[in-house]
């Protein structure tokens, strides 16, 4: 009887064949009173699911830190005005500091073309079916970009108010762009993005006379979800409050 499990298997033998010599038997070991078990093994993992992404993000962060490059991750719904805001900012700031832009979209390089007009270095990442940028994509992009010391990098994420919130890219600050046409309930419906951001830009404020939106209610809802979030009301079309955004970014650069 088997000593380990008590089964009735009396003999268990291992026969080794030499495959190079026409399967000649080279050894025949007979085990008495034991046999090999295919045992289940429990392995304690205790590992964060996003561990791999977070590790690469920290690698990016270290690189940015060493070169004194400040990075901003611009997130928001499609059509909220992420690229327009970047255009307004780049237009006013490109002579003061060197600016690089990493553009993330599922398809096309339309956004990259829009920003290249201002004479800055732009890299377009196409995620294909992917709904967000991840740290590895940024790692690959900065290898190609080779940013100068003391510069600014803007990463425009894929237009999406859900998925990019979970993926750290190694950025210093996250800027959320929300347009007033999206409605005042968005912070409550998509709280994760509002929680993980540092600045919320309320865009298209020039449309206020034509819409039935309560901006103070929108601000209340933002505060309910994340009361640390800075809020700036902007219109890049009519050039309203762009200087407030520049001031906010300058504040972060000095730090």
């Amino acid at each position, binding site marked *: 009887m088997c000593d380990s499990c008590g089964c009735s298997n009396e003999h268990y033998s291992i026969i080794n064949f030499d495959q190079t010599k026409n399967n000649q038997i080279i050894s025949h070991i007979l085990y008495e009173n034991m046999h090999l078990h295919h045992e289940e093994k429990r392995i304690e993992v*205790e*590992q964060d*699911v996003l561990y791999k992404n977070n590790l690469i993000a920290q690698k990016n962060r270290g690189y940015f830190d060493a070169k004194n490059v400040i990075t901003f991750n611009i997130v928001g719904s499609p059509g909220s005005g992420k690229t327009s805001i970047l255009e307004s900012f780049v237009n006013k700031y490109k002579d003061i500091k060197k600016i690089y832009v990493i553009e993330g979209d599922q398809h096309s390089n339309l956004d990259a073309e829009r920003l290249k007009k201002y004479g800055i270095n732009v890299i377009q990442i196409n995620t294909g079916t992917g709904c967000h940028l991840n740290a590895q994509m940024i790692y690959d992009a900065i290898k190609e970009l080779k940013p100068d010391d003391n510069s600014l990098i803007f990463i425009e994420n894929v237009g999406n108010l859900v998925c990019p919130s979970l*993926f750290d890219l190694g950025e210093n600050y996250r800027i959320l762009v929300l347009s007033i046409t999206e409605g005042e309930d968005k912070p409550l419906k998509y709280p994760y993005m509002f929680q993980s951001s540092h600045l919320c830009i309320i865009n298209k404020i020039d449309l206020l006379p034509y819409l039935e939106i309560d901006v103070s209610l929108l601000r209340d809802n933002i505060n309910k979800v994340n009361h640390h979030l800075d809020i700036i009301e902007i219109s890049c079309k009519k050039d309203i409050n762009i200087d407030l955004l520049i001031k906010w970014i300058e504040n972060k650069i000095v730090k």
Partner: protein
Amino acid sequence: MHELSIAIEIIETSIKIATSNQASTIKEIEIDVGAISGVDYDALCVALDSAKLNSMAENANIKINKIFAKALCENCKKQFEIKEFEYFCPFCFSLNIDIITGKELKIKHIIIE
């Protein structure tokens, strides 16, 4: 939609650990998912079913533990559960709170053979 990338990450990590332990199949994977981790429970279940197809984890039993979101009020030092994204203390209405649990998204253990 990001649940699929997360599901693939879970399966890939488990397979990596299993193969480094000379296993042939994965029998069980246990994961913790917090209520405010940003991952939808149902979407993750569907995504895991597709992610494990044609792999050594194909027949693995997947256990998902839902972890409640709990916070501690810095002001009145009381503990409470966060519901419906109301990030304030229900006792003293302070906004100064510390989240204790609910952000988990990790693989607890795997059982291999």
